[in-house]
């Protein structure tokens, strides 16, 4: 049995002009100790997928499909039952360390909170553990920092505090939503390294959400590329990056700036941008959502959602023109 099995997950949010389908049929599974990345542009539904796993959709959000954690169907649980899992078995690290910590509580108190809640530790015992955790995540002068308030810490230190908080109860699954996006580049590498080390050290499963292909390539074993609420390509990182199959993944890869001017997708000198814009989730076209921006699109692409097609072992892409795209490599 997999640790996490997500099947045909759909999320409908309340938008300003009526309901919006933010996630449209996402399926994947994850074993204990496995790591996977969700990559895509902002608004592609990757964060909503993560929040749906925790049952923390914004007000008015509706969830369909199935999320099984150790065989338990999470979508059927009450909020009270979910609370026993959150922060305990499944933990999350958020994107903005600046705003994700309560400004009025010391970080020691905030890290100790899940320990008191799930482990029933006294506040003193929890404080001791919090000090150890802060030390483990590389906070300089950890014990003295227990009484520090978030505004007294740097961005990197706050993210370390948030990671310590997520690790407190030794979860089986860690979800990290753009954990390094708000940080300086030098700090980004340190924080990623810390996450990878901790995941291996504790045998956690990891879902890493990022818009940064480089981060994904260096950190996880498997990658899922999301576009307009669906996974369009998925497979082992080495295989996928070795042979990108979906035109959207290719566009995403070609849009990475590279030092030296060499580009994998386009010619020299100019950065390849994906033409057009992300479609409005409230008014998606029928057929492939990427068709309007795709150089390979044919009328057939607009008829129906393309099914996932095998590219290689454990590697698939949902593209109706897969043969033509792969053939274009020559």
């Amino acid at each position, binding site marked *: 049995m997999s640790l996490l099995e997500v099947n045909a997950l759909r999320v409908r949010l309340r938008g300003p002009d009526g309901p919006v389908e933010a996630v449209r049929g996402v399926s994947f599974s994850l074993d204990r100790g496995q790591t996977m990345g969700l990559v895509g542009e902002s608004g592609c539904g990757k964060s909503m997928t993560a929040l749906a796993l925790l049952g923390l959709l914004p007000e008015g959000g509706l969830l369909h499909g199935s999320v099984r954690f150790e065989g338990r169907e999470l979508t059927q649980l009450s909020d009270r039952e979910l609370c*026993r899992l959150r922060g305990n078995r499944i*933990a999350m690290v958020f994107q903005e360390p600046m*705003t994700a910590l*309560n400004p009025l509580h010391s970080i020691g108190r905030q890290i100790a909170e899940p320990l008191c*809640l799930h482990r029933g530790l006294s506040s003193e015992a929890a404080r001791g553990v919090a000090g150890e955790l802060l030390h483990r995540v590389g906070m300089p002068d950890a014990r003295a920092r227990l009484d520090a308030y978030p505004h007294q810490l740097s961005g990197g230190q706050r993210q370390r505090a948030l990671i310590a*908080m997520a690790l407190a109860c030794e979860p089986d699954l860690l979800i990290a939503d753009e954990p390094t996006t708000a940080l300086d580049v030098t700090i980004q590498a340190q924080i990623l390294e810390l996450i990878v080390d901790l995941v291996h050290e504790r045998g956690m499963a990891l879902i890493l959400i990022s818009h940064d292909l480089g981060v994904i390539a260096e950190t996880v074993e498997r990658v899922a590329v999301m576009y307009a609420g669906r996974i369009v390509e998925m497979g082992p990182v080495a295989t996928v990056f070795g042979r990108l199959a979906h035109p959207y993944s290719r566009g995403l890869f070609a849009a990475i700036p590279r030092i030296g001017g060499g580009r994998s997708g386009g010619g020299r000198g100019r950065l390849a941008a994906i033409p057009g814009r992300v479609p409005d989730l409230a008014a998606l076209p029928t057929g492939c959502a990427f068709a309007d921006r795709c150089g390979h699109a044919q009328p057939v692409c607009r008829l129906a959602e393309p099914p996932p097609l095998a590219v290689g072992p454990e590697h698939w892409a949902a593209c109706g023109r897969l043969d033509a795209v792969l053939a274009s490599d020559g």
Partner: protein
Amino acid sequence: MSVFLARRLATLLATLLFTSLVVFLVLEVLPGDPAEVILGTEATAETLAALRAKLGLDRPAAERYVTWVAALATGDFGLSHAYSQRIWPLIAERMAVTLPLAVMAMVLTTVLALLLGVYAAAHHNKPADAAIMAVSQLGISIPSFWFAILLILLFAVELGWFSAGGFPGWSKGFWPALQALVLPAAALALVQAAILARITRSAVLETMREDYVRTARAKGLGRDRVLWRHVLRNALVPVVTIMGLQFGNLLTGTIVIEQVFTLPGLGRLVFQAISNRDLALIENVTVLFAFIVVSINFLVDLLYAAIDPRLKARDV
């Protein structure tokens, strides 16, 4: 922290000095001669001049201002012409009614507003929220003196639980005196509680959208625990700000309410002083009101620092 305190204290003193100057100048340019008011229109020029000299009105304005402020600073409020007695005991006696009244109204306001506001926010977009908001809208729209009359009709005339007005004095015992203040305090609190409840609700709703609230939920805290542990204290800053302003409103509100309930308070004293043209009394009571309001705001500033550690850090 000491810099924070010193800066707030300096602001407090500057505000008081400015208030005293404005009060003095306004009364200076106002037509009408206190000596004439005291002696009546029949008085001869000589007696008027004699009284002016006795009151110090013949001296230049700047000199009189400085003398007045210097006396105020030592706690000397001077003499009331209309009552022919020292002003401070007069004020002190009235304060014993008005201050408890205002504090009681403020406590009532705070308790009502926090309960209703938080409850409404926790039941956002549900019938309870809509009902509380509708009632508070009504509360804001009702003038306090009219609500006071309704309260008198129901609780004093119809049910007979409280007296319709008057004040027995604290010497007659604590409970009878307190009882006499219940209806006026309720009348004063209604509008303020309605306003504060709306502020509380929106502050709580605003805070519930913060990232750290989502973090707290992701830790496994239930909705109620998140509300009490993470939302409420963060939502308190705007609420406390409004409370500070409201205390000032309550003080001035006593002028009307003390008339309705015939309470011998500071508000009534001001009302009578204005009709008597008792300039010395008006000046001093106005500055006293200003002093109370500014002190409350000073207290609010201290509260900010107690609520939010970031404010302490910013000012040091």
